[in-house]
């Protein structure tokens, strides 16, 4: 069985009496250690798919198996705990808490563990070191550039040592230079630390960093093997 296995997944949103069909009969399987770039037009359901894999949302039908867990069978609080242990999330707009320093932002997921205060602090600093931002530990997000904020967000995503990183347009709001740094970082995390990375992107150059590229169009996945530059 694959590390991540989606079988005949259907996802509909109900808006009043109207039903929006987002994903239709979707199958996907990924092995551990993969680096997937998910591309496709706006509104094609990329974020929706990411939410299903990340255990944020439940499918309307079909099954989502991730690392042996059947997400469809889990309650809200079971999913919350599972997410905290299994998935690191990176968002387009970093989504750091503005009133906490970089270090505290990174420490946040560790509040869900049994680690003591000093251990949490040490792990947070280690994660910041991994993204080369130890020297900004005491800075608040407002005092950091976009690229730096995204690196803090990545440190937050990896601090609890999850197996999977789920990134929704992590470079969407960054200039080319900063985007390159983030992508290089994700590559390192994938290659050196063995994290499975699933990244949504609109940028073909970003997709080049991935091992697998899939296109989602109108709720259907189209494989394209090695990244092809097809903007």
């Amino acid at each position, binding site marked *: 069985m694959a590390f991540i296995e989606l079988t005949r997944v259907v996802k509909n949103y109900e808006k009043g009496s109207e039903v929006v069909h987002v994903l239709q009969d979707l199958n996907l399987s990924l092995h551990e250690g993969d680096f997937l770039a998910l591309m496709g037009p706006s509104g094609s359901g990329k974020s929706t798919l990411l939410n299903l894999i990340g255990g944020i949302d439940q499918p309307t039908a079909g099954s989502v198996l991730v690392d042996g867990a059947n997400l469809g069978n889990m309650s809200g*609080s079971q999913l919350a705990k599972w997410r905290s242990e299994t998935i690191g999330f990176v968002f387009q707009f970093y989504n750091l808490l503005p009133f906490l320093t970089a270090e505290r932002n990174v420490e946040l997921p560790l509040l869900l563990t049994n680690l003591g205060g000093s251990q949490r602090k040490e792990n947070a600093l280690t994660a910041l070191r991994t993204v080369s931002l130890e020297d900004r530990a005491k800075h608040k997000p407002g005092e950091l550039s976009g690229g730096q904020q995204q690196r803090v967000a990545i440190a937050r995503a990896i601090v609890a040592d999850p197996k999977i990183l789920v990134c929704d347009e992590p470079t969407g709001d960054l200039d080319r230079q900063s985007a390159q740094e983030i992508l290089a970082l994700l590559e390192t995390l994938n290659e050196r630390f063995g994290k499975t990375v699933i990244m949504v992107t609109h940028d073909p150059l970003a997709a080049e960093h991935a091992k697998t590229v899939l296109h989602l169009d109108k709720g259907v996945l189209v494989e394209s093997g090695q990244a092809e530059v097809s903007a």
Partner: protein
Amino acid sequence: MTSVGFVWKNLYRKKTRTFLTFFCLFIAFLLYVALGSIAVVFSIDTVSGELGANRLQTSAKYSMIDDIPKRYVDEITQLDGVEVVTHMTWFGGYYQEPSNMLVTFPVDPSTYFRIYRELEISDEHLTAFLETRRGMVAPIETVERYQWKVGDIIPIGSQIYAQKDGNRIWEFELVGFYTPQQEGMSAVLLQYDYFEEANAFGPGAVGWLTIEISDPQLAPELAQKIDSMYINSSDPVRTATESESNRQFLAQYGNITLMMSGILLAVFFTILLVCANTMAQAFRERIAELGVLKTIGFNDYKLGMWMLSEAILLSVLPAIFGVLVGMGLLIAVGSTGAAAMFIPTPPMSVLLSTAVSSLALAGALGVLVGAIPALSTTRMSIVDAMHA
């Protein structure tokens, strides 16, 4: 950082708003404790309690500040049903500084202590007081506060009475002290005979009378009788039970209890809105953030509790300060002179129960204003939150 630290930081992230809300609640609870304690004192009869039921108080009809003739004492003593009559006069006393007011009454020692049995004095000190013309006794608390010793000559200034030579600083010998068994009645007492003879206004006038009657049932009848005795004289009087009289004095300012309840109700309604508004804003600003926290793995229950804790802190913290400052003020006011006679420091039991009820109220307020944001936090789905 811990969960508590996180809630704390959240509370302070909008410093100005939090400060203003805090300040608003601080003032509200300060008012609540101060007015609430006083209202309790008015509504329950701590001033005179059961002992006051068979006591009447007679003062000048139109103003408590007016004198009445001393001969009324003897005339009223003659009436059937009257046991003892004693009198007091407002001396306007102070110690060292005029601002350092001392409630001081020239009294007739023998009748005074016969009526006010709740003031405990040793036979030795009472005898000394009876026998010393320039004698003075004081509540033990006052004696200790100023570190007086029995035998000391104490200068007492008067805002009202000069001696015959014009000097307003009088000297008395402290011959003893007494221990009030009830809050409220604690005055420095002087020998009236000496005061009457030595004061520049001359003899024959006293401030007001306290009359002990044999049966509380007789109170209305006797009060009317006394008032009618002097109705056509140049010094008409008004007689009421002692507790009623205290209330009447305060009633000059309106129905205090009702007024205070009204004010407090308005204040609490206002702070309820202020607090609810603060929490509603805090929630709205954080929807996306709460979505992120949920995504990371914080569960609904925990985040809801954080929101609720924040609301409770927001209301309880300033309440604690307000209660402390309010109690401090009451104790300070109650121990400074004139105010103490009519607005005595509420007994510690009243203060404490007001403090406890304030904090309970603050807690309830916190739960009330935190409930909706907390529930919304719990129910909000991540997908919706992230789209917000």
